[in-house]
């Protein structure tokens, strides 16, 4: 079923039978859509972990400060 690749040269692969713009903008949009919705959550996870770590060190600092002062 997987017969030969449909395009003789790379040029008309880009041209896509005259509809290059439409096909490639669809696939470009799809790529951006997939990338954004995978990378953003990963980056956000790092940001959350950093914030939580900072808050933990801050709390420890305050507790140690209170324990000294009290």
């Amino acid at each position: 079923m997987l017969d030969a690749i449909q395009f003789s040269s790379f040029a008309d692969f880009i041209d896509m039978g005259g509809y290059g713009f439409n096909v490639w903008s669809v696939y470009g949009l799809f790529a951006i859509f997939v990338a954004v919705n995978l990378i953003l959550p990963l980056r956000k996870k790092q940001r959350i972990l950093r914030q939580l770590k900072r808050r933990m060190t801050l709390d420890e600092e305050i507790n140690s400060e209170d324990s000294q002062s009290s």
Partner: protein
Amino acid sequence: MWLWFSKLGSPKWFYELSGKWLPWLVAAMVVFMTVGLVWGLLFLPPDYQQGFTSRILIVHVAVAGTSLAFFPLLLVSGTITLVWRMKLADMVAKNAAILGAWFSFITLATGSLWGSVMWGTWWEWTDSRLVSMLFQLFLLLGVISLRSALEDSETAAKACALLSIVGCINVVIIKYSVEWWNTLHQVSSPVSMDTQSPNGPEFWIATLVMIVAVYLFLSVSLILSTRNEILERERRSQWVQDLVSKS
């Protein structure tokens, strides 16, 4: 079954379970995505009517099919939040709405790109699928803006759950009323989509592969954002503190 159901509710259990499942899902997604894209772009014969634009349809049909699943997902998570008050369901619902808006937007974008070739115009009011998808996008954006309007997360959870349930019913009503409105205004629409779907088994198998890839992508992205939500909302609980100190 009841124990399993209440165990699923605890974010900690979900976090660990999804941690185990995530690598497999990502692997499956990558496999299906590459197979679908490579096959669709390189090997698919041009359709006798549409030529190569049938390649657009693969992605469009896959994303459109998946985005129809969003409101049922919101309906289920909404009822769980309202009836059993499970925080996890609200976390899933919050990220599902955002992802759903993305899906609807991409469906509209790819649909109008396909339409600009086949119908000559980027937007066609007589195509009931596009119009009802447009209003689904508006409903999802409504749920998101309601979520961000209510600061206190407890009321926000209940309110958005209720709105998504109502929204889900409305999407169905909108879909049929738009289709009915369409037949009344059966103006000489250049060509409606269903007479145009290319035939040939390869097209449908490639589309099927893409649909599975997109569903896998949906679950991966939703799991990732829900895990973030769990970390944020359970930041005071002990297991998150150990997680943070370990990381």
